[in-house]
Structure formats: C-alpha cells, structure tokens
C-alpha cells in the first residue's frame, strides 16, 4: 500500500506546529498503525530528518501509552488502541490525518506526544486502596457479589489512554475519572476511602483544567475499552452521596 500522511509536527511545547505531508510506500495491510509510522520514521532517519515522535509501549493494547487522533477519531476508525489498529482498515492511496490528543490539560510535548501527567495526579489523589501489608489475607474472607465484581472489572479495564478526553468537545476527563472511581468504590477493599476518593479525584480533575461533562457521549464512543457512558452518572451519584456524608 502507498499512503499520503498528513502529520502534526511540532518541535517542542513552546513551538508553533503545523501539518506536514509525507508519502509512505511499501505498507503492508498486516502492519499496525504504529509499524506504519516506524516505516515512515526509518525513511526520515535515512534522509537525515527528525523522526516523528509518538508515544507507545506495550503495543498489545493494554498499557494505554499509545494515542493519536487519526482522521478525527481518537485511536482511529476501529474500536481499539492505535497499536492494535491495522492498516487493513485503510485503502491503498488513502490520505490519513494524524494529530495529537487536543486538550489544554494535555499540552503537546513534541509532535504527537502529549503530557498526560494530569491523569497520574488524578490517580494519586485517590485511585488507590489502603491494604495492610505483611501477611496476605485469606482470599475468601471478603466476599464480593458477582454483580459488583463484574461492575468493578468493567471499569478496571480502563488503561488511562486519554482517548475520552481527546474525543470530548469539552476536553473533559469524566469518563476516565468515573472508571477509576467506580472500579474501587464498588468493592469492599475500596470502602474505607469511598467518600474521600470520589471527592478528591473529582477535585483534582477539575484543578487540572479538564472541562465539564455535557453528556455528548463522544468519550464512550472513542474508548478502546468500552467504558460506558452511564459510568459518569454512577460517579455523579457517588459524588453527591459523598457530599452528603463528608462535611
């Protein structure tokens, strides 16, 4: 396959950026989107140009490091991560636009790499459980109802990629934060911090400069892990409950 790429190039956080056009030849439909970018970068390096910077790590859809808005869609046209998106989703001769996540809470570091440390700070503010260390507790000592376990697991799937923020017209992090809050708040292990967790994580989310939720639903459509939109309503419920309990 031969493709026309239009890629956002930006030297550093302070520099002006612009879309640059590249032709990539010899792309196999079995390549992942990132492998296609590797091909481009090898070419750029051979020509003595600066390769395109992009985030990646596991390349198996589980770490949340990869990003990219491809033709206007976070993680591209399929419901998966960019590393798991294959070039068979495109056609020979296609022009593909590749841009970084856009949100003021996710400033561009270079090219397609954005600073997602805001998510780390949201996690740090309450995305943990306190566990007594030392002897391991008996596994069956704390029963968890099946429905709660399923609910927790559904939300534990969030990999913190930030596609929800990138897709949201308000740059809102409500879907990510709700996934983290719901995951821990429903479990007995998360009960001791149930109220402070949701209050602190929402406070941190707001402090980071993410927008509010207008329930547009773009986040849930973009999420590679299928975190559903009602998760936000579930977090709102937890927040209102915590407001009543904590004075």
């Amino acid at each position, binding site marked *: 396959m031969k493709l026309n790429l239009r890629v956002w190039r930006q030297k550093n956080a302070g520099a002006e950026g612009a879309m640059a056009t590249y032709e990539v030849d010899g792309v196999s439909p079995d390549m992942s989107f990132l492998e296609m970018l590797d091909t481009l970068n090898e070419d750029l390096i051979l020509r003595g140009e600066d390769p395109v910077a992009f985030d990646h790590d596991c390349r198996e859809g589980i770490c949340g490091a990869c990003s990219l808005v491809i033709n206007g869609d976070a993680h591209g046209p399929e419901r998966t991560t960019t590393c798991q998106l294959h070039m068979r989703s495109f056609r020979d001769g296609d022009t593909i636009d590749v841009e970084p996540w856009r949100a003021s809470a996710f400033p561009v570091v270079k090219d397609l790499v954005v600073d997602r440390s805001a998510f780390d700070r949201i996690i740090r503010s309450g995305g943990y459980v306190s566990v007594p260390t030392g002897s391991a507790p008996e596994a069956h000592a704390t029963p968890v109802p099946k429905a709660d376990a399923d609910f927790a697991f559904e939300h534990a799937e969030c990999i913190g990629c930030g596609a929800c923020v990138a897709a949201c017209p308000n*740059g809102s992090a409500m879907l990510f934060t709700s996934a983290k809050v719901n995951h821990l708040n429903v479990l007995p292990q998360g009960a001791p911090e149930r109220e402070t967790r949701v209050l602190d994580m929402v406070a941190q989310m707001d402090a980071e400069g993410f927008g509010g939720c207008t329930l547009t639903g773009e986040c849930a459509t973009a999420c590679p892990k299928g975190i559903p939109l009602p998760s936000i309503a579930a977090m*709102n419920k937890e927040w*209102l409950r915590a407001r009543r309990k904590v004075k």
Partner: protein
Amino acid sequence: MALAPSKDTATAKGAAAKGSASAKGTASVKGTASARPPSRTPSRGFWSSTIGKKTVMAVSGLIMLAYLVAHVAGNLKVFFGPEEFNGYAHWLRVMGAPVLHHEWGLWLARIVLLAAVGAHAVSAYQLSRRDIRARPTRYVHRRKGSSYATRTMRWGGIIVGLFIVWHVLDLTTGTVHPGFESGRPYQNVIDTFSTWYGNTIYIVAMLAVGLHVRHGFWSAAQTLGVGNARRERALRLLANVLALALTAGFIAVPVGVMTGVVN
C-alpha cells in the same frame, strides 16, 4: 507503615487481571520530564466543582421544566374561550387564598422561577466558558456532528433566555405590546399571535425549548445520578415525550389563533 497506599494499585490491577505481566509501571513516564503542573489547587467545594455546578443546573432546569408543564396546561385553556382563560389568570392571583394574600402565591412562584433562571444561566455560563477553555485547539481533520448536543444546548439556551425576556415584556408587563390591557389576557394573547413577528418569535423559541428539554431532561437524570443502563430507554423516551408534548402544546395556541379556531 502498616498501610501501603500505592499509586499503582488501581491501574496495575486492570492489566494484571487480564493476565499480563506488563503492569502499568510506565504510567508516570508517559508524560515525559516536563510534567505540567495543575492549573489550580484542588478544592472539594460544591460550587467550585464541575459536578456541583451541573447539579445546580439540573435542579434549576427541573424546576423550570415543572413550571413549563403547568404553564402549557394553563395555556391550553385558551381553547375553552375567554371566560375560562381569564378566569384561570384571575385564579393565579388568588392562588393559595385565604392563607395567602392577593398575588402572594403568584409572587412566590415568580421569585422561585427568577432564582432558577438566574442559577441556571450563571452555571451554564461558567461551565461553558470552562469547557471552551479546556479544548482551545480544534482538530485539523474535523468530524461532523460531534458536538451537536452541546452546541444546541448553548445556542438553544440563549434563544430561550432571550425569549423569556421578550415574553415577560410582551404578555406580563405589556411594555413591548401596543394596546396591552392588563386583566384581559385572552385579548392580549390574540393580539400577539395576530402579528407575524409574534408568531415567528414564539414558534422558534418553542422549538428551541423542545430541543433543550430533550437533551436537558435526560442530562439532568445523569447529573443527579438517577440514570443507569437499565433506565436508559425509559429516560430517553420520557425526555422525548416531554419535549414533544411541551412544544406541541405551546405551539397549538398561535396555530389556533392563526387558523381562527381561537378568536
């Protein structure tokens, strides 16, 4: 330390549960060295929170919505002739009597509504500004329709807000209504809907109200944490029925005047 709150507990769990060895130890590397500081210090306050402001918006919106349901029911009395309609307008003034003094009930309702409109407008303004600031850069490759609901809520809200001002000046105070006679609402209504601009302003505003209620009612349910996957269909249905009933009910009056059913 007996308790070991670990930052990685939450995120590592997701990956580990799926049977992978590569838990997310990389989380903090993601942002690279130039970690951006938060734009302000976190606050647990109600009003400083986006969820708190949304709650104010939802509650004030629902108060206005309840009023609109009562209002449309009252308006439809116009089809039963001037006596019944004017009688209803008179009752609004003696509502709550003899416990309440003349017009006290009406003023109470007006104060609650004014507070609701104010709270709603202020929270909508502050949230919208925040939302626009949170996403200052557009994508070069723009998809169609992605912010349809958000934009119609903002523009629709502004249209409805301007309409409320005009509507009060037209049919309550009569300031912009030539030949207005207080105490004769039936005649005033017929006057308004005998002008092309009266009909146009009114019908456009009622379509905006319908769209606003359609997304707003369902949104309020999500904001207040009443919505969930099981109730999704019922809530959407109720939002559509409410929006349609309000719009159709309100528009029936000018259409009635235009077609001569009401005269």
